[in-house]
């Protein structure tokens, strides 16, 4: 029957997902063709009735619909729903972060799905996790400074090395490569001799060693493995989308980060748009606030309209407004006016703020339509 329903709906201007849900419902009640036709016709009427009216101030409604619940949101960071181990910024600060397009969000996080051959096996998942997680020397060895001989000594911990599937040779090479100094091995310890006897140089080396990432990705501070349904999923604190996607065993088609800017750089503007929508919706939902998807989509579309991810605010959309008066009324009044004068800019008064300022009706809603009356001239009847 489903095909039949879809066939009837073929010429109706419904969006695809609506067609599907109508078909689903019809299937549920096992409707015959006549009822189906009736239902679809009624749906069509309802659909046309529910369309937006031309002239609607869609932007303002969207802005209000997102801004108004802002007052009801919390300010605290909470644990991520499901993964108690990872802290994630939520509520108002997160929403602001999303709309500001911060390049470095306060709590970047990734959800990494694995390829089938890795996803089922905890050991294999663990192995990938080890490859991703940033391991510092301090995690696998003890570092000591020896002031007398002006040297730094690294004492690897065999157990920890094994746990991170590393060996001494690799560690040694890594140190040599990053410090560009020969490392001597003396009864199980690595000795790094400082060339010139200077205390500052010693501490410098010590600090550099401490910050040295032996294996894994620097940004990925922690990886947590969780079983979800019948597969293992990795959650990470910190994010490096590009490098994780390249990692063997990672199913990059299902791997996401909450750092929107990274998505924009790696996958492009369309993906960034979807990321903005998804992140904003999940932030609002988590707070128990109902906001229609369409409002958030509009915001995301404005932010991404000309192919660049632009923030809501002075350095983004509001700052690039065509109208001088609108910009002056928003922020940095004096600078905007001075710059406009030098550039010889011309304000065409098409927007809202400009027309309010000069005292004209705005071109939105009822202000956008004009009425002409045809006078009755045919005598009295």
């Amino acid at each position: 029957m489903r095909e039949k329903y879809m066939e009837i709906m073929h010429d109706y201007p419904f969006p695809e997902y609506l067609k599907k849900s109508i078909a689903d419902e019809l299937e549920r009640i096992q409707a015959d063709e006549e009822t189906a036709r009736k239902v679809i016709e009624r749906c069509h009427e309802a659909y046309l009735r529910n369309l937006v009216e031309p002239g609607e101030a869609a932007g303002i409604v969207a802005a209000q619909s997102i801004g108004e619940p802002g007052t009801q949101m919390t300010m605290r960071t909470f644990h991520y729903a499901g993964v108690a181990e990872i802290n994630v910024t939520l509520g108002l600060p997160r929403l602001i972060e999303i709309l500001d397009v911060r390049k470095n969000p306060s709590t970047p996080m990734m959800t990494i799905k694995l390829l089938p051959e890795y996803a089922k096996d905890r050991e294999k998942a663990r192995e990938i996790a080890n490859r991703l997680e940033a391991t510092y020397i301090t995690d696998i060895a003890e570092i000591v400074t020896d002031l007398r001989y002006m040297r730094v000594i690294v004492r690897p911990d065999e157990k920890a090395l094994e746990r991170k599937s590393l060996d001494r040779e690799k560690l040694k090479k890594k140190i040599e490569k990053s410090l560009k100094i020969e490392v001597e091995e003396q009864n199980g310890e690595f000795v790094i001799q400082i060339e010139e006897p200077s205390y500052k140089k010693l501490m410098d080396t010590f600090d550099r060693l401490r910050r040295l990432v032996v294996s894994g990705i620097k940004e990925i501070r922690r990886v947590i493995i969780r079983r979800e349904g019948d597969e293992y999923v990795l959650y990470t604190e910190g994010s490096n989308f590009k490098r994780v996607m390249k990692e063997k065993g990672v199913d990059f088609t299902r791997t996401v980060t909450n750092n929107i800017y990274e998505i924009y750089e790696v996958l492009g503007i369309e993906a960034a748009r979807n990321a903005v929508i998804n992140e904003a919706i999940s932030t609002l939902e988590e707070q128990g606030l109902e906001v229609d998807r369409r409002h958030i989509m509009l915001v995301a579309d404005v932010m991404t309209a000309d192919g660049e991810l632009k923030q809501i605010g002075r350095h983004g959309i509001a700052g690039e407004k065509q109208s001088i008066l609108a910009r002056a009324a928003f922020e940095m009044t004096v600078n905007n006016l001075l710059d406009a004068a030098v550039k010889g800019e011309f304000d065409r008064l098409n927007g809202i703020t400009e027309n309010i300022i000069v005292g004209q009706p705005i071109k939105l809603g009822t202000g956008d339509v004009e009425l002409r009356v045809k006078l009755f001239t045919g005598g009295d009847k």
Partner: protein
Amino acid sequence: MIPKRIAGIRFEVLSPREIRKMSVVKIITPETYDDDGFPIEFGLMDPRLGVIDPGLKCRTCGGKAGECPGHFGHIELAAPVIHVGYAKLIARLLNATCSNSECGRILMKNEKRDKFIQRIEERKKLGQDYEDIVKEVFRVTKGVKKCPHCGADQMEVKFEKPTFYYENEHRLTPKDVRERLEKIADEDLPAFGMDPHAVRPEWMVLTVLPVPPVTVRPSIILETGQRSEDDLTHKLVDIIRINQRFMENKEAGAPQLILEDLWELLQYHVTTYLDNEVSGIPPARHRSGRPLKTLAQRLKGKEGRFRGSLSGKRVNFSARTVISPDPNLSINEVGVPQEIAEELTVPIFVTEKNIEEAREFILRDDHPRANYVIREDGRRIRVIETNREELAEKLEPGWIVERQLMDGDIVLFNRQPSLHRMSIMAHYVRVLPYKTFRLNPAVCPPYNADFDGDEMNLHVPQSLEAQAEAKILMAVQEHILSPRFGGPIIGGIHDHISGLYLLTRGEKLFSKAEVMEIIRPLDVVKLPEPKHDGKWSGKQIFSMILPDITIEFKAEICQGCKECKGVDCENDAYVFIKNGELVTGTIDEKAVGAFKGIIIDEIIRKYGNEETRKFIDNMTKLAIKAIMYTGFTVGIDDVDIPKEAREQIEQVILEAEERAWKLIEAYKQGNLEPMPGRSIEETLEMKIMQELGRARDMAGKIAGKYLGMDNAAVIMAVSGARGSMLNLTQMAACIGQQSVRGERIRRGYTYTNRTLSHFKPGDLGPEARGFVKSSYKDGLNPIEFFFHAVGGREGLVDTAVRTSQSGYLQRRLINALQDLKVDYDGTVKEQTSGLLIQFRYGQDGVDPMKSYRGKPVDVVRIIKEVVGSD
């Protein structure tokens, strides 16, 4: 008549010539008024600059105060000074152009320059920002050592804020700067992002200063009779004084050093005149020590010209007072105090058809009478007893009669903060005694109002168009559905919910007399047949106000049983309405509440706004009658629990504390296993929190069990009227753990590592870390009280921070999105740039408000209707 529209506004820099041209007088003396209080000619208050005193006439245009817009004058500066606003740009220009006094060209070959100009032009055409290209030009030219045009060596000009330039440690005077800028070729300007038609670089060094008309800087007369001049006038006086001194000294041939000092002083005064918040120099101050508000300060910020006077204005025909509830009003009405109604007016535009009506208002001597008449020439005459007859006599078409506000008028009602469009809605006036605005409590949610002292504003639309728009677009019933989520935002609150809950719960029976009493305020005209031998059930009474709808859903009180028994629910929590008849179930928040109200949602989709309005009106009145009939009260004895319950609770808490101590013991001995990815300390904290949280929940359950379902407070909590079971738990059983940032309280005496001096250092026990055992009713001991205050403060700080942050977010969102409009073709476009944002609004073109909670069509209901009708 099609109103005139301004096509646009061009911004340019004033040239000295233009300044002199528009000037009506050259100001030469710093004095303002002479001893008799008359303005001195050629002074800052020269009568040719306009008038501010009523009665006088402008010497330039002859207009009276209020008519004459004022006229500019000018000051001839004895020496050029830098315009602070352009100081940075000047510095860039100096570095980007040849310093050779013969050359002055851009430090770049013509071809290269043209390429840059072309790129800028392209961006301009696309309506895009070209600031980055201009920056590149300045960067490229700054490094050039030799002029490619004349071959002269270039030296770097160092810019020192706010207005100083040095070349090779040698100070460039504004005069030098101006001479260099004069040499810059017009053809080079576009490369710097400048328009040669709008500006010449040398105009950024001032030689003539425009003096704004007196209307811009009116002086006020204090009670003492003294004149107090505007800040701008003060500053201009300073400028003229220094200017004169400089001239005198120059003529007298004073030493260069003194002249330079004076020049710098002149620069200082002109700088602060333009902007008194420039970094690097002290702001000019008033005699009292208050910094002066000069030009930039007048424009800037929230109270500045742009945001304070142009984007937002103060209005007439408005009123503000405290609000209070009145369930007997319809939701689209507002009670207006008589006193306010007598002050506010609605214009009647007199025509032949309504002249008699208008005349009557003029002749009346009590409430709805005329306050003013406006003659055709625009003169406004107050209607008083003595001139009433005369005015009524003279009244003719074309006049406007301003009559007092009366019942049935449409007004706009608003509560700040106006966060969404439902914050301003149109109500019909009901003139009532007393001094507060009255509104139906069902409209509180959209305004987010309560009656603890809230005030609201009322505006009277003054044109027929505005009134029509208010009635059709802004009336309350047009906003029952919120565009935010496509569900009702207006609905029952508090007592409406408990009232209907009491009425419809179970099978309460009412005699005819009782029914008549309850339904008396409703517009129910026919009593249905009694169903229960001569008596009516509460469900039947509720059904009387229901239109013909069929719907079933689980009520708020639903316990969420594993298997729903549907209409046979023991809890009476399954609502089934058949053809407008409540068959089973209890009406509660889920049925009629604001935000949730499924019944309201159903009615509005099926019967529209007007019917829904009537239902809400009836529903609120019925609920109030019902709750008054049974009586409903909450007191402290509502949270009394029997002794055995208290003992049980105590036991539960004691056990939990013991377990917490055991955890601490295990931690101290190092036996605690850390949770994955957490430190041992964090694990301990989490486990203790869990343990104590569970204890409080248990205590709550015990308390809840003993309180019973007939307890008024419990009724409110379960029906969703007010409060929650958690609130009750805290009142009756145990308040629970206090927290700061989601952690137990641990700050305090950091150096001894304890929260209070009552505890041993390092004490990790529940008591020492903010666990409050007592209930609110029992009262808190001093230590508990302190911790409670600590936890409570976080909430207060949070709210304070949040309001400012979300306010700014909203402002930015509005600013970014305000120019979006849905076009006739269903696309969404940005109006100023014409940028296409969406091909189809929301991808499906559906209005979120009309959508069924986001879905474009409510398929289930349509199927039900179609199948049901067969």
